[in-house]
């Protein structure tokens, strides 16, 4: 419990929680819930009712700590996570939970999914079909690299499963304009001689700009080399995948992306539901 001291706050403790998916009794074994998409979904619903007031709608903090990035959450065992939600943290604003144990496990599964590396989630779907889509019709390698192969304007995906949660990967795929990865602000720069550079801003200040263009050229500019810079509202990444990909294709893509890792040591969590 010490690990998680002061990490959680559960407000609205008396809120009524309607039944959700995955609510069958499962005997309380954490392995049955952690990583289970149904349980995560059910936990998400409970979270919206009893946790988001303090920890934020996306879990990224508010009055309470950020559950996505907090090292204490990431390092805590599943049982410790369950314990803190169940019992609260005495002496803090984090109260004991009014939920039954099954719902608490679902909540723990959801909180774990916020920050757990996607590779530990055993995301369902046809990974090979996702790979074919990635390298084929979806055109992802126009901008993204995996193991050094691909384009320049999107973040490297080689270690994606180790470094991002499933939620973040899903967001990146389906809602790329919601946030841009650091160093990937889409820009169009017009130089004083009229030359136009399209790319991403690796860095910029009042005095200097570092722009990577679509061909992999780095442009190091003093600010007065540029007449104008336009930060684009939309990412270079297509935002229409929710419409152009079927539900199965999205799931297959997530199954593929969530397992990307350079490390041969990284294996999906044993015993997690398939």
């Amino acid at each position, binding site marked *: 419990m010490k690990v998680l001291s002061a990490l959680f706050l559960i407000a609205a403790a008396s809120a009524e929680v309607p039944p959700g998916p995955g609510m069958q009794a499962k005997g309380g074994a954490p392995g049955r819930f952690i990583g289970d998409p149904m349980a995560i979904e059910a936990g998400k619903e409970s979270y919206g009712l009893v946790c988001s007031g303090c920890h934020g709608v996306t879990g990224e903090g508010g009055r309470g700590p950020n559950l996505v990035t907090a090292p204490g959450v990431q390092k805590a065992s599943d049982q410790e996570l369950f314990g803190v939600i169940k019992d609260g943290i005495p002496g803090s604003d984090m109260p004991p939970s009014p939920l039954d144990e099954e719902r608490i496990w679902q909540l723990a599964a959801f909180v774990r999914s916020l920050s757990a590396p996607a590779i530990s989630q055993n995301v369902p779907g046809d990974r090979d079909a996702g790979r074919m889509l990635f390298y084929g019709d979806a055109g992802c390698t126009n901008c993204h690299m995996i193991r050094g192969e691909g384009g320049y304007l999107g973040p490297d995906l080689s270690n994606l499963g180790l470094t991002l949660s499933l939620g973040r990967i899903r967001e990146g795929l389906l809602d790329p304009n919601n946030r841009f990865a650091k160093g990937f602000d889409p820009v169009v720069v017009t130089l004083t001689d009229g030359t136009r550079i399209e790319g991403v801003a690796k860095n910029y200040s009042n005095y200097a700009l570092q722009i990577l263009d679509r061909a992999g050229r780095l442009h190091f500019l003093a600010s007065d080399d540029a007449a104008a*810079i336009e930060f684009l509202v939309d990412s270079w990444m297509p935002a229409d995948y929710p419409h152009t990909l079927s539900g199965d294709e999205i799931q297959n893509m997530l199954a593929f992306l969530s397992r990307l890792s350079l490390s041969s040591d990284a294996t999906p969590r044993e015993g997690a539901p398939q």
Partner: protein
Amino acid sequence: MIRAASSFLAAWLAAAPLASQVRYEDILAAPGEDWLTFMGDYSANRHSPLREIDKSNVANLVAKWVYHVPQATALSSYPIVHDGVMYVTNSNEMHALEAATGRPIWVYLHPGVEMQRTNRGAAILGERIYFVTSDCQLVALNRITGAAIFARRYANPDDGYFCSVAPVAIKDRLIVGVSGGDSGIRGFLAAHSAESGEQLWKLWTIPGEGEFGADTWGPKTLPWGGAGTWMPGSYDPDLNWIFWPTGNPWPDLYGGDRPGDNLYSDSVIAVDLETGEMQWYFQFTPHDVWDWDAQEPPLLLELEIGGQMRRVVVQANRNGFYYVLDRLTGEFIRGNAFVDKLTWASGLDPHGRPKKIPGMEPSPDGKVVCPTMWGAANWMADSYNPDTGLHYVMTMEACDIYTSSAREPIPKIGFAGTGAERQSRLDGQFVIRAFDPATGRRVWEYPLTGPTASWAGTLSTAGGILFSGDDDKHLIALDAVTGKHLWHFNVGQTVNASPITWARNGKQYVTIVAQTDVFTFGLFSPARSSVAPEGLHER
């Protein structure tokens, strides 16, 4: 179900990357405007042809930028510079900076590594930049984007290893070594494919049972004898051999369980780049009980000795003696003490073997011996200026009280046979010295103030300047001919690395990595007033 990608994306496919390739031939010709390998050049001379900064203007050097490395505590990285980008390593991470401004372009954090040990730098080849993680993975990144290409584990931390070495890129391969010798490992050197990361060869620096040299150990120590390989070596392209230094035997301070010479600890080994076969070895400190590894730079020079030009390997060794070896055979040519405080040996015999003075071994009650465990020299960079003919070495004058223990040697728990400590805080001083390598003669010296807690070394330039970190948190510039002080700057942090120099758009810069920050200097020029482009603040 999917429509074709947007038209502009399709157009991008036609655009070929224009990143300039770093070829083996470029590294062979370095340094020039770029600094392409840990030592700057394969000969470990660390002499730059850049001459914009010279004796007439070095006093006008000013700080150009400072880059802070978050989470850093003791940076030891020698940067690589290529095509306007500087690459600096910390434990398990790489930072790519615009060299002229210090602004970060990308930062790569290798995921999943809990071990955090020092890191000495990177290697560059083709479109890739390479480094090792603390837990001994050789990592390849795209140098433009920092995208990961492969991570190949080459040593297992469960066997006592950790890794800090800057890889050396030669032709199609990377040479890497291992650390951990102070706690028991079986040292080795390895070559890996730059393309795939596959291991091409592996050379043990401790013999296997029954092999030549195995009888120079004892049964308890042979499997864990140490002889780490954590300092980058040098390379002779004509011979196609690398010259790599090896670390001390284990347990460091107690030799009772390893009664022989303990091959190939404390040596320089000549190794065929293609096959990994050892061509010769020269051991500086047989049966070392003072932790005097040989991780000092092995400089490749051509010297006139006895009326003949000789291709030699030169090393100012941690044990206090200066050695000149024949590069082809490893034959000892000449040597001499290069520090004044040296009490463990009376000299070198005709084969270069030290004439040990009895009774100078560490003891349970402590024995005062000079030089210190830190060494008369260490892994700090040396440099050699062909114009002055001088070899510049960061030396230390000091002694330690060495203690030992006959405790059962247990590997991988940090047991080193006990250790050494200074008699008094006032006992010890770094001195930058210039030697004539052909004779070993000390031509000039520049004593430093400070707590003897630095790992800073030297850099030579064609501008006649010797740059160095000092022991008192400065970057300094000395006259390469006379050792006279010309300039200094207080970086406010202990300096654990050695300076490099490079140029961009015709301007020469000097960079040094200190404890937590990277500092870059250049000649003063008035700052250009700056006008932010339209739209910069409209996001």
